[in-house]
């Protein structure tokens, strides 16, 4: 009985949470399609999210690409398959590592900032003040963030992929001594447009996941500073986990549209 109640409770709160996020997403898209878009706020978010996240995304992509290349090389060298390192790195970066790394870094950096900002506005009654001034908080706060994310995230994913592959190439050719021509030839041969499209598509989905979870956390924050802290932690944890879990299902699903190999 106790276990069933516990399980039911967890399921119920999961459904409630999912419902709140979905409702927020629906309201946001209704506003976007109704043209309730504030251009200057959206541009500010693009600069905040997209421009501001570049450094972390580039550094993460580049260093992961480099170590991944090194480890792949060490294993492949035993089989005398050094020139096969290129396509492994590039396909993995495009399909999985690029979007996931960018997603996780943005979930941490941007998700935390969004939930903390909205949460603080909530607990200090600034969101009530918006509503009292007949401004819908979704129009003013969520729509610019959602658009900012949808525009920035695919570009950040592309950047992460590019720097990952570039760092891998430099590592392989300059440090590990793989011939540049073989590396590039094999990489081009086995990397296809679909691989890149899959990464970019994932970027769109991760943008939606991160922005709606973070905004939901902020908008539902309560109990002052402690509540804002809790909302921020939850936003980062839940958004990161959601990125990783949804990535699995996206890979399975997108593989039908963009088949590997």
């Amino acid at each position, binding site marked *: 009985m106790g276990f069933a109640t516990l399980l039911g409770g967890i399921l119920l709160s999961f459904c409630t949470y999912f419902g709140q996020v979905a409702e927020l997403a629906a309201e946001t898209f209704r506003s976007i399609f109704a043209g309730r878009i504030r251009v200057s706020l959206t541009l500010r978010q693009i600069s905040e999210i997209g421009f501001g996240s570049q450094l972390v995304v580039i550094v993460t992509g580049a260093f992961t690409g480099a170590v991944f290349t090194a480890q792949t090389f060490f294993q492949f060298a035993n089989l005398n398959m050094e020139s096969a390192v290129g396509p492994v790195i590039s396909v993995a970066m495009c399909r999985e590592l690029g979007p996931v790394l960018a997603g996780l870094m943005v979930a941490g950096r941007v998700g935390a900032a969004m939930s903390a900002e909205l949460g603080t506005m909530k607990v*200090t*009654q600034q969101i009530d*003040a918006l509503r*009292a*001034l*007949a401004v819908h908080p979704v129009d003013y706060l969520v729509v610019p963030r959602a658009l900012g994310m949808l525009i920035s995230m695919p570009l950040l994913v592309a950047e992460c992929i590019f720097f990952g592959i570039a760092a891998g190439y430099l590592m392989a050719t300059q440090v590990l001594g793989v011939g540049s021509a073989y590396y590039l030839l094999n990489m081009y041969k086995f990397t296809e447009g679909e691989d890149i499209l899959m990464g970019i598509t994932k970027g769109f989905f991760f943008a939606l996941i991160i922005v709606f979870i973070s905004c939901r956390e902020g908008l539902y924050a309560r109990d002052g500073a402690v509540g804002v802290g809790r909302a921020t932690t939850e936003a980062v944890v839940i958004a990161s986990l959601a990125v990783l879990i949804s990535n699995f299902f996206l890979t399975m699903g997108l593989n039908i549209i963009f088949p590997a190999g």
Partner: protein
Amino acid sequence: MRRENEKPLIEVRDLVQTIGTQQVLRGFSLPVYRGETLVLLGKSGGGKSVFLRHLIGLMRPISGEIFVEGEPITALSERQLEPIRRKIGMVFQDGALFDSMRVCDNVAFPLRERGERDEEKIAAKVAESLALVNMTGHDQKMPVNLSGGMRKRVALARAIISPPDVILYDEPTAGLDPIVSDSINRLIRRLQRQLAVTSIVVTHDMTSCYHIADRVALLNEGRVHFYGTVEELRSVEDPVIRDFVDGRSDEAE
């Protein structure tokens, strides 16, 4: 004071609301007539601010109904409430200024949101509004750099920049020095006289109450305990009212 036959601008019927386990409103009913200033008195934590939040749909009652110009508002959605909220402005207790914006942008916010694009016109109206609350010269500051009283006055300037039909004030003079309090009282009076603004003022400040009120309601135990004019308030003998008005606690010495 008149008008028992007139239809109230805002009518509240049997409002019930709980916060946590405490029932703060227990069948609260109140009429508010056009053009008058109603002062709502009551103990701290007695549900006065909660009541104000219901009038613009920031909270929904458990039961009861609110009519604004005859239209029931408690079942309206967030978007349907927008026209009501354009008619009713609210000055929050601690201002609720947008802390990412300068004072001038805070005050200009309602104008910009209503589509005003002429920056010169906006600047002129902001200056005028800030002058009304004696905040001229602070327009470039950020809200975090203002004192509590200054924040409250900026919030007031934001609420009156495009004057609504009704303004709700949540303790407009609490924490202000007597001189600024008096200027706020005069401002509430002036808005009423010049622009026929209806005001609902939640306060503990009896000086302010006597100065601005056309009518007074006293909230006690979640209901309206007294409703009448200032003169009636002065002369009434009820011990609950007298204790509140004369500032006596019932603790033994």
